[in-house]
């Protein structure tokens, strides 16, 4: 477990350090690169939490698409020389963020999450998540000690199944959302009459 701890804290350091860099460095390019680093670190967290599929998505979309988009944006607006200067709200923004952070940390630490957690089920969840992308093998699950009903339940709970099953509606809606964003983004980026 110590290895896991080390990796976790290392990733945490990278993520937090990168994030601080994003919001503090004056060079936008560097900020974008640091942002990519943060994305990668977060992807690492996903892997550690057995969410490999999500990690893949994270890398593909965030690092591959979003970070690149940012860099395009930075280049096209030719605003680099003015850099990533702070505005006059640093102190209030810092105070508010700190207070909110305090509330969040306080929440995370004091809430007795276990009262609601299904103790001893972590293992099964892990199995389910491991098999997230594909349809889990029933025999494997049975071997892992799940009862027949639970096997059936897990079998129907792959991530992809969920996306086109229970969450098909938001899934479709997201496509509309992307369409809208594309139309809007294009229309605005293209400009009028040109």
């Amino acid at each position, binding site marked *: 477990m110590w290895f896991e701890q080390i990796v976790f804290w290392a990733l945490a350091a990278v993520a937090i350090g990168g994030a601080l860099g994003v*919001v503090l460095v004056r060079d936008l390019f560097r900020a974008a690169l640091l942002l990519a680093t943060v994305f990668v670190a977060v992807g690492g967290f996903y892997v550690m939490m057995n969410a490999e599929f*999500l990690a893949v998505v994270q890398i593909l979309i965030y690092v591959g698409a979003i970070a690149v988009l940012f860099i395009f944006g930075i280049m096209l607006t030719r605003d680099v020389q003015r850099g990533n200067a702070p505005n006059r709200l640093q102190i209030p923004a810092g105070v508010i963020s700190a207070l909110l952070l305090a509330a969040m940390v306080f929440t995370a630490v004091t809430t007795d999450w276990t009262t609601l957690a*299904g103790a001893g089920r972590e293992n099964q969840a892990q199995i389910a998540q491991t098999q997230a992308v594909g349809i889990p093998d029933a025999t494997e699950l049975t071997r892992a000690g799940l009862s027949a009903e*639970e096997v059936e339940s897990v079998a129907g709970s792959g991530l992809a199944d969920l996306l086109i099953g229970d969450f098909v509606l938001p899934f479709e809606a997201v496509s509309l959302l992307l369409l809208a964003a594309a139309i809007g983004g294009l229309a605005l980026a293209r400009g009028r009459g040109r």
Partner: protein
Amino acid sequence: MSLEAMLVVAAVLFCIGLYGALARRNFIAVLMSIELMFNGVNLTLVAMGRWLAPYTVQEQLSAVLTGQVFAVFVITVAAAEIALGLGIVFALYRTNESVDLTDAATLRH
């Protein structure tokens, strides 16, 4: 690695993003900060799914994955948001010759 630690890291990311979104002048930097916030949220969601198998829905393990599903959606929406955001960046840049938010303050009072 524990739930609390993960949540704290996520919260830190979130709040750093919030600070950046509030305190940066450059539009694109603000968008980047917002992405940090989304990442914080996603970490929270996944961690919740990872550690919590809620007692009311214990029989339905699909609920465990909901966090990840949520995170997938957030990532997608974030991408859409950035796409549109950049569109607006260009529109703003075209009219204002600048993407500095402090300059774009003609609408006030």
